């Protein structure tokens, strides 16, 4: 193999040079002397010989700078604020360079207890900050731990910059564990769900590939990228740093929809009697949210926010998310913005013994799609969902396209159409208010129940945070936040995991809280119990790095989605419908999450089962968060 040979030869060249350079002070052993030296029968290289004899080849044992110092220069050029990592020997030099050469600033090393936590934190951070966080991992065992979280980020179109350590040159590996932690092609295990990867074989190659990776990860559709940092490249002394160059990174403009397609879409939207806008990951930034409001306002068209991002203010009169299905069924034109599943948005699916589906839109309804997802698809993992039959499909970034679409719509609006739009808007506003009122009525059911209803839980949290600058960094399966809270800022909602891989919630919340910290926001995480148990060590990370975060357990003591699946199977088979809890519940013993959190340095209370105790407990926990600490309340809740 050519790559290992090159590394090997380069290192040996250095060693030879070092020996020559050192010749004036240390006499090298003669050929005859080496031959005469007794050869040990067994080679306990790490023990006796290393400690008792003069190394045969290496005369220089220290160097002031190494390759990983340059790697830190490269990471700095990418504006990476943090790297999250569980320490690993395959990137020990890079780790040391970050904390010493780089002074542990930009990037700062964040200690994680599991690589899934590292990536999950990067995922949450990116959705608040709009840029990637660095992750370091062993190329083998670490990356295998990280894989699920990378898949979530891939499905959720989130940029993450991953660097994995590896020792490619077999002749340079320490005997034993380093062999098990080395791999021919480190990225192969995650290649199906990273956008790009590379294995540089020189420091300049590392610099160029890092710049390219950053550009790739930040171009919609944004996805994680991965660069292998060979341990030899990291550890080799840096002799000629002046000859190396850190590449300048220019961000690629996101792709905008074709002007002809934009004009055609505008024509359909203006002429429509019942247009509907559906948004999933439409707003990448706060500007995207404003662009969507502008378009909806001009058209007075209802917006169904599927919640992949904070797309549309919850209390805007055109927010009709709760009425989605009825509106879609009545629509003559549907505009889908970065939809994960357009087919699923316009079809009803029935999960019974015979799986069946039917289109719910009217005959002749026109579908318009704007998504960067059309620019990028892979074969193996099936996150692209079922094929939708679209009338106008723009392979483009929705946020980048919305201003042009809005302008095109404005040009076509006549006085008559404007009057029609206003009449439509008035009806939609009334429906919106009815929906809000109904939500408050619905919340009264089970208000004083124990376990605590999810409506009560979210109402109690809202009462404590509504006058703060808050950021909800968890998604809710109960939908109560969208029904009871008022969302109008981009950072107040960050969507879900993307791949529905359990274990995302806790680390993503800590990562998002890390991003919110510098803005002084009150970060709120309603934490599912099953999710936390995947890698609860991230709570320690939050405490260790003084990351303020309020976590409120949605502790239904079950993997509740699976309880329902088991019930469905048991019913379908006409047997054992009382045993769905086997293998799906987290009881006997109940987990004491407050003790778990306290053991890792958090302020924590619970389990709270009486709804009347929740408000005062929230006040105390928020006081701790305002002191700069993470806090957790264990609340025993209804299932959904």
């Amino acid at each position, binding site marked *: 193999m050519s790559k290992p040979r090159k590394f090997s030869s380069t290192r040996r060249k250095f060693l030879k040079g070092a020996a020559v350079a050192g010749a004036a002070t240390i006499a090298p052993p003669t050929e005859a002397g080496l031959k005469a030296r007794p050869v040990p029968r067994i080679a306990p290289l790490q023990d006796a010989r290393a400690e008792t004899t003069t190394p045969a080849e290496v005369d220089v044992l220290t160097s002031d700078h190494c390759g990983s110092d340059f790697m830190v220069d490269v990471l700095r050029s990418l504006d990476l604020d943090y790297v999250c990592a569980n320490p690993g020997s395959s990137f020990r030099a890079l780790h040391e360079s970050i904390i010493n050469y780089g002074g542990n600033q930009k990037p700062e090393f964040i200690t994680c207890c599991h690589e899934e936590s590292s990536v999950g934190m990067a995922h949450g951070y990116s959705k608040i900050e709009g840029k990637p966080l660095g992750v370091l991992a062993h190329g083998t065992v670490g990356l295998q731990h990280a894989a699920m979280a990378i898949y979530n980020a891939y499905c959720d179109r989130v940029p993450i910059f991953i660097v994995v350590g590896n020792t490619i040159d077999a002749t340079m590996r320490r005997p034993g564990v380093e062999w098990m932690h080395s791999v021919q092609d480190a990225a192969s295990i995650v290649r199906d769900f990273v956008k790009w990867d590379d294995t540089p074989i020189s420091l300049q190659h590392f610099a160029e590939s890092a710049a390219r990776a950053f550009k790739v990860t930040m171009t919609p559709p944004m996805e994680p990228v991965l660069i292998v940092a060979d341990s030899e490249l990291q550890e080799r002394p840096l002799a000629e740093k002046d000859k190396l160059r850190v590449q300048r990174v220019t961000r690629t403009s996101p792709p905008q929809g074709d002007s002809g397609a934009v004009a055609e879409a505008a024509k359909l939207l203006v002429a429509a009697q019942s247009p509907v806008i559906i948004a999933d990951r439409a707003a990448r930034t706060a500007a995207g949210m404003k662009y969507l409001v502008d378009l909806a306002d001009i058209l007075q068209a209802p917006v169904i926010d599927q919640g992949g991002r904070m797309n549309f203010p919850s209390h805007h009169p055109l927010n009709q998310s709760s009425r989605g299905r009825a509106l879609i069924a009545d629509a003559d034109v549907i505009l889908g913005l970065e939809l994960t599943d357009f087919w699923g948005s316009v079809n009803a699916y029935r999960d019974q013994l015979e799986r069946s589906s039917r289109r719910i839109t009217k005959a002749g309804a026109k579908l318009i799609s704007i998504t960067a997802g059309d620019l990028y698809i892979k074969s193996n993992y099936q996150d692209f969902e079922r094929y939708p039959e679209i009338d106008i499909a723009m392979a483009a970034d929705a946020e980048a396209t919305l201003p042009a679409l809005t302008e095109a719509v404005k040009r076509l609006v006549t006085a008559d159409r404007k009057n029609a739009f206003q009449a439509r808007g008035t009806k939609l506003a009334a429906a919106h208010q009815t929906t809000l009122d109904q939500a*408050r009525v619905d919340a*009264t*059911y*089970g*208000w*004083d129940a124990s376990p605590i209803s999810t409506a009560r839980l979210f109402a109690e949290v809202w*009462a404590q945070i509504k006058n703060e600058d808050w950021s909800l960094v968890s998604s809710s399966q109960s939908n109560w936040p969208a029904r009871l809270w008022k969302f109008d800022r981009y950072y107040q909602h960050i969507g879900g995991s993307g791949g529905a891989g359990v274990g995302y919630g806790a680390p993503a919340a800590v990562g998002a809280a890390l991003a919110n910290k510098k803005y002084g926001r009150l970060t709120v995480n309603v934490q599912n119990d099953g999710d936390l148990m995947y890698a609860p060590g991230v709570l320690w990370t939050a405490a260790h790095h003084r990351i303020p975060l309020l976590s409120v357990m949605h502790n239904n003591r079950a993997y509740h989605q699976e309880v329902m699946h088991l019930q469905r199977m048991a*019913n379908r088979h006409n047997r054992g419908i*009382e045993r769905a809890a086997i293998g799906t519940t987290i009881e006997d013993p109940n987990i004491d999450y407050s003790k778990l959190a306290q053991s890792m340095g958090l302020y924590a209370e619970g389990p709270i089962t009486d709804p009347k105790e929740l408000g005062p407990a929230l006040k105390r926990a928020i006081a701790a968060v305002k002191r700069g600490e993470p806090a957790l309340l264990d609340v025993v809740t209804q*299932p959904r």
Partner: protein
Amino acid sequence: MSAFLLILILFAQTPPRGNAETGRTLFMKIGCYQCHGREAQGSTATGPRLNQNPITYTRFVSYIRKPSGEMPPYTAKVVSEQQAADIFAFLQSLPKPPAVESIPLLRQ
């Protein structure tokens, strides 16, 4: 219609007498709570509210036997007529929730 036939029809339409307490136990035991909540309060994500959502016993039984939507079917093999009546009685027995205006956290 003969008096005998009328009696037969009335008898067929009269639900078994249900026991609300037994019904509450069954509601938990056979998994109704999983989608509808322990107080039958419902969830927009999983299943509608059954508390204060009056339907006839006949429609109730008909739906749980052959649901038209996503709900898993509860056939007579797994939920007897008497058990269905108990669950129905439990749902009928649930008290009305407090008014929105009486809950400060829910006032606008």
